[in-house]
């Protein structure tokens, strides 16, 4: 497909929105960000192949046919994204069932440093004042 501005802008918006959602704390939003990113990538792959008639031998002139390869790759990618979405949803649900929320928790190391800071022991990474 010849890169056309509408598609490029859509891909850009999907990526931007996806990344913005990915930076949220709530896992449900992270999941939505992932879905947006996945769709953005799929559109991007589609842009990489030639558009045209259905690529079936005998149904069209070979020179007018669309490039089927990107579409196959997108199909595979869609299946993978579907599986991932289901798994992330399950994770979010499990997290909600166990902890009462689906927020991404702090790193163990961050928690440790924060605890040390609260008890005013210093993290050992900077000079004690």
């Amino acid at each position: 497909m010849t890169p056309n501005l509408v598609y490029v802008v859509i891909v850009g918006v999907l990526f931007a929105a996806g990344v913005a959602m990915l930076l949220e704390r709530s896992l449900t939003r992270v999941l939505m960000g992932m879905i947006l990113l996945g769709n953005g990538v799929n559109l991007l792959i589609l842009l990489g192949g030639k558009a045209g008639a259905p690529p079936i031998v005998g149904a069209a002139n070979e020179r007018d046919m669309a490039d089927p390869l990107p579409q196959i790759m997108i199909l595979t990618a869609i299946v993978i994204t579907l599986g991932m979405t289901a798994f992330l949803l399950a994770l979010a649900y499990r997290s909600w069932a166990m902890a009462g929320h689906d927020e991404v928790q702090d790193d163990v190391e961050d928690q440790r440093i924060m605890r040390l800071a609260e008890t005013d022991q210093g993290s050992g990474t900077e000079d004690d004042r």
Partner: protein
Amino acid sequence: MTWLVPLPVVMPLIGAALTLMMAGRPRAQRTVSLTVLTATVIVSAALLWLTTTGGSMVVTVGGWAAPLGIVLVADQLAALMLVVSATMTVCVLVYSIGQGMADGHEETPLSVYHPTYLVLTAGVTNAFLAGDLFNLYVGFEILLVASYVLLTLGGTENRIRAGITYVVVSLLSSVIFLTAIGLIYAATGTLTMAHLVERLDELPDGLRLMLQGMLLLAFGIKAAVFPLSSWLPDSYPTAPAPVTAVFAGLLTKVGVYAIIRTETLLFPGGRAAVVLLILALLTMVVGILGAVAQSDIKRLLSFTLVSHIGYLLFGVGLTTQLGLSSAIFYVVHHITIQTTLFLATGLIEKRGGSTALDRLGGLARLSPVLAVLFLVPALNLAGIPPFSGFIGKLGLVQAGAADGGVLAWLLIAGGLATSLLTLYAVARVWNLAFWRVPPASAPARSPLPPLMVGSTLALVVLGVGLTVVAGPLFEIGDQAAGGLLERSGYVEAVFGGPR
């Protein structure tokens, strides 16, 4: 004999289907998994023998010839990685069977354990054999999906917390990889690596550099290269011991393998060499400083895992044959040793009731066998002669000295300092967990399950045995590195003749 090539991928997948149908019959599941993985080891060994004597082997899947169809390529590097990783999966499987029996919960989440484990193996072998970038992506996805399930096995709160970080980071790296694939296809019209070799050369310089950078970023996350490594020590330690062991041994190394493959085959000439070397230095030093600060054995080992990825990048970044062959030898060593150490840590947890250093003590007296099982691979990791860690590091230092640049000497210094700090970190574990007076809270004496000890012992022996076979192994690594740098052999194998 090319029909052997797809077997390491197909057999575990069939095994996964069979074990899934046998849910609730643990004994049958175990038999199937063990048979399948043992067969995979044998086939991989045969592949290594055949590729060493007769050159690369190629299978065109579905009979569609190379640039149109998908190819599976077994060259020496792929075959060597297959042998090592398949051997690890068998040993860890035996260990996990021993643990399952010992813990007495024969039925619980184990019914999904075997199928998932086999799918993970299939993903790893598929990634090694892939001769096509998209197939490499699929291989990565297979192993990642399996790893998500294994990491969150049982769904406890801690594992879910770690799993979320791991899944999101892995998904992000997959998105970056897929984007790179889309762009590469748009720019060149092909994804077969052998075909890309010539098509990428025709691209403008800036575009090539961008594509190389994107692939490096995607694989850098998977291989846990600093500064993309902080997900690893946070997620790995929460999983069950055998799962952590197989993750530590294999998953990051698949990322390293992908870096080696793309940096030599697709983007030769070392344009990213300086970046790789700087990243290698930072990965080594920052990783090991993290390890020194830890108070839990599993977390400490995870940091050493990150740190030693730096050595592998060091070899790749030098872009010389000696550098690459040392890196290949070091991968073999590192897979074996890191897996062994995590299995030994599982035994420590079993005997001492914890992996926190402040709660352990006197294990050398409580369980002398365990002490040996930990000490030997620990010294091996730190690179004490005559163990294989020393030989690998020696090769890297030689390769660095042969390069002679300022950066190379800096890396040699960093590598030696890292080695010394690794010794300090494992010696600290030894002093605190093995040599102190046993704490009053030490669990009562209980015999360690023989299967767990046996499989760990087998890996310890294997790790020591790497020293014995270091000569031939280095030679295979050298040939593989030569093939990687030459490139034309790979292309000719895929297209069935010179182009």
